[in-house]
């Protein structure tokens, strides 16, 4: 089938920063994103798990965002401004999508 080049950006970020990130994405004209729950993880600041937690502190989310390659830089800048002082990971993968008109 006909596919089109795109970028898949995955941002793993603290739950508390969710609204700030999605607003930054909107301002950078990102047309869509999907948020996946995260159960736990480990990094330089140690290991964590959501089991039994009530506070939103100490939870993370994965935000997946598929965009046209030429929009990548705007997105990364917007995301970086939010995650800069926070823990979190941003990765970018090449991908192909169906229905390019959607992105």
């Amino acid at each position, binding site marked *: 089938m006909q596919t089109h080049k795109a970028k898949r950006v995955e941002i793993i970020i603290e739950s508390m920063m969710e609204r700030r990130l999605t607003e930054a994405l909107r301002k950078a004209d990102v047309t869509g994103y999907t948020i996946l729950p995260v159960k736990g993880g480990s990094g330089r600041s140690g290991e964590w798990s959501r*089991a039994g937690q009530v506070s939103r502190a100490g939870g993370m989310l994965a935000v997946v965002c598929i965009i046209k390659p030429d929009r990548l830089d705007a997105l990364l800048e917007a995301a970086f401004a939010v995650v800069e002082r926070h823990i979190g990971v941003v990765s970018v993968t090449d991908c192909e999508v169906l229905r390019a008109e959607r992105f």
Partner: protein
Amino acid sequence: MDQILSLAAENLLSPIILFFVLGFAAAYAKSDLTVPEAVAKAMSLYLLFAIGFKGGASVASHGVDTALILSLVAGVVLSFVLPLVAFALLRVMSGLDVTNAAAVAAHYGSISIVTFVAGTSVLDSAGLAGEGFMVAVAAAMEAPAILAALWLIARYGDKSNSEEMDGELLREILLNGSIVLLIGSFLIGAITGADGLARIESFIVAPFQGVLCLFLLDMGLVAGRGLRSAAGVLRPGLLAFGIVMPLVGSLFGLAAGMLIGLSAGGVALFMVLSASASYIAVPAAMRVALPEANPSIYLTLSLGVTFPFNLTLGIPIYLAIARTVTGG
């Protein structure tokens, strides 16, 4: 002293404490016992709902008086002042840097609603009851401490280390879910009064202690896991702070309660609130406002040291002091 000891002993053998200990021990022994996140949140919603409503219904039947207003004002003031006290103590006792000290201080100015609930539960057993509006005081004490911490950073710290206090952040702090549910339920309890209470009493009164047991089991699990993985951050000075600060805080609460002229139960609850440290709302706010502060430090101190201390020894001590001082 005798009274404290016997109260403490009785308290230590109550189901809620024992379930906390069970959770703590299970976590330490690396059991895979866990409470799902959604279930922990459900229990926390239930506790806020129930305690808020009961407080409101009690105010509805006793009426609003100046003691209520004064207590709210005192609560807000304490929540601003206690972080300054905590900050000073921390700088002396622990050598934490300004950012971390301010973050920890915010937790001790704010309150832990479960500690409050456990306090009312001990009062019940002792045949006492605090003023119903103390729930509203609890809600009022949640947020100001966060502002105090940001002020401390602005005053003593590296300004670049804190988010500027924008409207968004302030709204998040003042309208965080637990404050909204607690105050909302309080108001609805106050509006619907005895009638409203009669309609939902068998939901919020009868099963309350049982839910509290399961919730404390979960808190034991979380505290135990936290302590196990972050015990390293607790240098002796910090550990001492986690026990000294609630005692110091309780004296501020004692003063406030006495000045306002609350009942023995009310004074005890004011002490409990001042002594307790937040582990839900403040940590979340700190991740946004002071991301450079290390969460292991403030969470471990608040949930792993001060919460168990208050639960087991603190509350009986505060109650005994409140009774002695008020003669109640």
